[in-house]
């Protein structure tokens, strides 16, 4: 649309011709509404949904079991030790919080940059953010020795002892960063849902559904005044969210960067972490979008254009991450600090070298495939690659946390870390929580913003004016 106006160059026009549209041709307001709302309003729940949900739900029950055992016996059921005080717990925390970032980036920054292709993926990307933050937030609490105290002692609340948290600790910054992030993401997601809830209320046939959607729609009538306020609120929230994309993971990276540990104490961490977060977030969006568009027939809305764009974002952020690795290695040498030097050598040749090289293979080498259009067009391959990126980013946190801790300054304290079955159970459990929520989300909430999609069908262009 807007782009077309200043197309002069035939070569550029040809390129644009090759670029798939953000919505398949031939759609109208009605067809968009029906096909997206139909997923929710249908009475028929597919067997596949039940199967997937059951799988996710059983993992969720495993999470409950693990948390129960954790609270009864202590975090000693995990493999953490001294010197490796943090392991799966914080790896998973950083991994999940990183995944969340794509949602915010898509909904806030791309909105402000008026990237239309965001409309068909922002809703479920935001949901993904919310669920990922829920998974992530569990770890900082449960990884403590006494979570029943940590749950409120980390917050600054007035108390008779006059005790405040220790504001110099990055963990306190974390508490603020993550809780702000969670709150803003929830608000943003919910605000975006309101018009669609009204659509569902109007289209629902079952009185119960009508009532529930009605309540959630907060009395939305679609009046011009509603729209005007809605647009303003949404824009403001986007404005608030935008710095969060950068700040949350920067703060998370301070958990490491502020310490004295070789491998943690690095100024590159904030940008490197943010890029890594967006990278892994887009990989997760891709992991979710590919099956979603297939099973619910949403190929018309989540088109190859989206797939291509996401791949390109992953390529760009992945390259930043790879630059981070190179940078770490360079400064380990350039600093001439023996502890830093050994840290890098240990990553490359130590007992965890396999994981380091796997990480390099995925995050530095494999992503170069994204340069190729044929790869970007190959949906099954992209699905596998997006999963691998998630693995790679998990490994990155493993490398940063475990290999830095297990061999630090005094060789006498060096030790190995090995996860226990409960480490895996907790991780699998959060995956269960994430997918349980996601399955419920796609069944009961429109996974694509209907009203926003309506703005990009050709019909809308006739009426569109700048607002």
């Amino acid at each position, binding site marked *: 649309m807007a782009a077309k106006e200043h197309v002069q160059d035939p070569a550029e026009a040809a390129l644009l011709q090759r670029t798939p549209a953000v919505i398949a041709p031939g759609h109208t307001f009605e067809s968009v509404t029906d096909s997206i709302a139909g997923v929710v309003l249908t009475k028929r729940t597919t067997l596949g949904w039940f199967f997937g949900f059951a799988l996710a739900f059983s993992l969720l029950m495993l999470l409950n079991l693990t948390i129960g055992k954790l609270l009864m016996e202590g*975090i000693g059921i995990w493999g953490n030790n*001294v010197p490796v005080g943090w392991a799966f717990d914080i790896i998973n925390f950083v991994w999940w919080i990183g995944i969340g970032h794509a949602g915010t980036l898509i909904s806030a920054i791309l909105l402000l940059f008026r990237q239309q292709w965001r409309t068909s993926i922002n809703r479920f990307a935001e949901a993904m953010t919310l669920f990922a933050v829920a998974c992530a937030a569990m770890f900082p609490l449960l990884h403590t*020795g006494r979570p029943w105290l940590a749950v409120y002692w980390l917050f600054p609340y007035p108390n008779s002892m006059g005790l405040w948290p220790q504001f110099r600790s990055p963990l306190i910054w974390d508490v603020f960063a993550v809780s702000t992030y969670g709150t803003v993401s929830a608000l943003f997601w919910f605000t975006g849902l309101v018009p669609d809830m009204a659509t569902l209320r109007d289209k629902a046939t079952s009185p119960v559904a009508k009532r529930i959607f009605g309540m959630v729609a907060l009395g939305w009538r679609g009046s011009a005044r509603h729209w005007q306020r809605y647009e303003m609120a949404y824009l403001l929230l986007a404005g608030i969210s935008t710095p969060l994309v950068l700040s949350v993971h920067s703060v998370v990276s301070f*958990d490491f960067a502020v310490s004295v*540990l070789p491998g943690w104490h690095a100024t590159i961490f904030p940008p490197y972490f943010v890029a890594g977060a967006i990278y892994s977030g887009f990989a997760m969006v891709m992991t979710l979008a590919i099956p979603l568009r297939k099973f619910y027939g949403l190929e018309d809305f989540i088109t190859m254009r989206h797939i291509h764009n996401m791949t390109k974002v992953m390529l760009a952020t992945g390259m930043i991450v790879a630059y981070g690795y190179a940078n770490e290695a360079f400064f380990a040498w350039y600093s001439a600090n023996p502890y830093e030097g050994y840290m890098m050598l240990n990553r490359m040749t130590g007992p965890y070298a396999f994981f380091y090289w796997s990480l390099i293979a995925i995050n530095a080498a494999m992503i170069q495939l994204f340069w190729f259009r044929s790869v970007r067009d190959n949906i099954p391959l992209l699905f596998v690659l997006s999963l691998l990126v998630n693995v790679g980013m998990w490994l990155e946190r493993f490398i940063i946390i475990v290999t830095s801790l297990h061999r630090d300054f005094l060789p006498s304290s060096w030790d190995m870390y090995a996860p226990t079955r409960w480490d895996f159970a907790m991780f699998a459990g959060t995956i269960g929580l994430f997918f349980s929520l996601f399955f419920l989300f796609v069944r009961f909430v429109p996974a694509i913003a209907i009203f926003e999609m309506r703005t990009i069908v050709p019909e809308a262009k006739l009426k569109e004016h700048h607002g």
Partner: protein
Amino acid sequence: MNQSNDIEALRARLDGTRGREYWRSLEAVAETPEFKEFLHREFPSNASEWLDPVGRRSFLKLMGASLSLAGVSACTRQPIEEIVPYVRQPEELVPGKPLFYATAMPFAGSALGLLVESHEGRPTKIEGNPDHPSSRGATDIYAQAAILGLYDPDRSQTTTNLGEIKPFSAFVEAARAVVSGQGSKQGGGLRILSETVASPTLAAQIEALLKRFPAAKWVQWEPVGRHNAREGSRLAFGEYVEPQYAIEKADVILSLDSDFMCAGPAGVRHSRAFASRRRAETGTARNRLYAVESTPTNTGTRADHRLPLKPSEIDGFARALAAQLGVEGVTAGTVSDAARKWLGPLAKDLQGARGRGVVIVGEGQPAAVHAIGHAINAALGNVGETVTYTQTPEAAPSDQRAGLRELVGEMNAGKVDFLLVLGGNPVYTAPSDLQFGAALHKVKLRAHVGLYEDETAALCQWHIPEAHFLEMWGDARSDDGTVTIVQPLIAPLYNGKSLVEVMAAFSEAGARAGYDLVREHWAAQTGLSTEAVAPAPAPQPAATAPGAPAAPAGVAAAPSQPLSPFDREWRRWLHDGLVPNTAFAPKPVTLQAGFAKAAAPAGQGLEVVFRPDPSVYDGRFANNGWLQELPKALTKLTWDNAALIAPATADRLGLFKGEADEAFASKAPVVELKKGDRTLRVPVWLVPGQAPDTLTLHLGYGRERAGRTGTGTGFNVNVLRTWDSQDVVNGVELVATGDTYQLASTQDHWSLEGRNLVRVATAAEFAADPGFADKRELVADRALTMYKSDWKYEGYAWGMAIDQNVCNGCNACVVACQAENNVPVVGKSQVLNGREMHWLRVDRYFTGELDNPDTYHQPMPCQQCEGAPCEVVCPVAATTHSDEGLNDMVYNRCVGTRYCSNNCPYKVRRFNFLLYQDFDTPSLKLMRNPDVTVRSRGVMEKCTYCVQRINQARVTAKLDDRQIRDGEVVTACQAACPTDAIVFGNINDPESRVAKLKKSPLNYALLAELNTRPRTTYMAVVRNPNVELEPPSASHAEGEEGH
């Protein structure tokens, strides 16, 4: 099936009774046949229920029994036996203020003088007795761990006959029957088997019995005693004598396979003596130590020159050295090339230090080498200077090995009617070919007195629980002859009887209280009257307790109470912790010809050396969790023993195939050792510095009936130990099995990775460059910090200095810290997971060549950084800085994020991953130091510089309206240290010892480049090598590593 009926019946009897009637009914209950029957079936002979956690069913049963017995025991009258507090009068007993009592720990035929801290009647901590020559205030690991031994819930608790509970009086009756039965044959069937006896009273009792029954026999057996040393002295001088080394006078010391600093109770004395010539303050008067040894020892790690030799080669080396020195009667044997290089310079050095040198031979060496050692000392004029000879501390020195073999022969021949095993566990410890257990069955009546229902108790009809030394009256001689009266700190927890009390059952006078027996013996010895005379003023001793030099000294004696002349002495002995003038006078000895005749058997194939375990000794401490979890100084292994092997030998034998990745080295290959028809499966462990083709096996493991803690740990190497090869077995065949075994080591990494953590220079290098210790590759800029603090420490500023020159890694500090600070034991699986809780660890590093490295010990408590990385990262301010510079830990506030531990460059923080404390076992509740919080699950903990001791001193000082004096606060690790390597105090006081040490050029801070500004600093090591053996260019000071 009808257990519940029993309880019902008991309950029915107890129901409806109240008050006075209740008590009477209880006795009636206890007397009924039903109750006796109940008890009888309750404790069958192999009742493992005693050892297992009390199940619900047995819990109910025990409740029933103890309910009825509670009434019975309340009626026992406690005997009136006065004990005398060390420092303060009982009137001064203030709840919360501990009292110190002097006593001694009898151990392996010797004793260590102690002061025991008692909180409201509960002994909680052991310190050395500063007045006692064997201790001078320091202790070893065994003394430190004795507190846990006392409160061990697995100790045997009742006298039993064939598994049935009997009163001690029943045993007394049985003993009388034996004695009267033996009357006709002059005691021909009576045998007593004891450990080495260093108690004059007990020895006198046994000798009195032997007088009554001339045909009876007394055999002493100590699995790792001083057999060879004794025989060596007889070989050299024709009589049993004890060499007394004055190591502090020696400039040149040669250790021939001797771990004189850590083996046995004399180790404490020797360590201090050696350290007196080695500390940072010593200056140029440094001694020089040569160590020739088969297996690395703590002593060897402090040597300036160390030569690993196979056990069979040491004899040859000693002979060659003696020949070189011109000792008459010795002809040089064959020596290896490496050894030959040593001989010239060593002989020259020893000769240059005539009268100022000493040769010390290890217990594992054959008698002839001991004799050669004596001859060398005599030839060098050292006798009378650095070594003197006295009578032996053990009351009746004998050839124990021959004695045991003879006894077993008699047992097998059916000549023994009654065997009384007075302590010890010969079924486990006796050489395996003697088949002691089988022979025991041929003895008609067997009685065992011991702390545990161990392997020997299981094969004896009678078992009498032995009183722990902290529960009994007794006496003991230390190495130099000094006698200490052992006074109890607490009434026996489990009705145990001391050996003296057990022996009294066989005397004409019959069973008596230990108190009376010991007093009578000493009254008779001194010839003083025990009749009270007119009131006498209480003696005023000048002695003081550690940490309280200003405490008003006084002996508990009410002035109005009449005291007998003996009592006056007695009270002073108890108070001082020693009987004055009992140290032996030197004894003239003359060397006899032919002492060096017996040559050691030639070495052949793999040689296996047996050594007492550094932690559990001969197995007697197997059930002590503190010792089991104590990382052994050289291997850092816990909870197990292993076959120690040199890396080169392991390589040659094809063990550790491929690259032995250190990180996973704790998965050790299991080998089978074969000698004749004896085989032993045991994991191997690499030890740099071990002699080639030599395996070291530590005794004391593989116990079958040690208790819940010790049973099943490690491997019983006694299987390979036969009567004629108790020290070394030659020609052992090693077969790799392909199996692996998980060993739990607390320090997997050997080398320093090129990091300059332990700073070392030779004396010459130090003289040339006095500032070497604080030269840094990386320098921290004080201004480079996010959190600038201009805090001035105006009052006290606590600091510590650790002298690596003298630390020999004996571990006493580690156990002392554990005892003082209620540090829990976590068990092998948790150690494997890197979760040991020791607040203080001793890091061990090897540098130099792998086959013969230099070894350094670096005690690592919390460094109490002024710029502590842990403090800024704690989200809840649970670790904060005190105004005296302590890095405090607020357990109540800790939520357990472990960030502080991650950010600690020294990794001294310890986290309670699970509930490690035992909150349920009643006896362990008594054990804990009431001044230190018992930490629960989920909180971080660490060294506090013993803040409770600082605060105690603060209270005392404030009451006197003065400052805390230097030396008034003594941390637990410092108090225990035999080498005085740890110095603590106020660094703001320029006159304090610690402040002076920190001004030493050797002082350096570890990882100072991180801007942590630690309050704990280290003294760099200055080695004193012989330039002929180590030319200056080949210095090891740069710390190249090998692994």
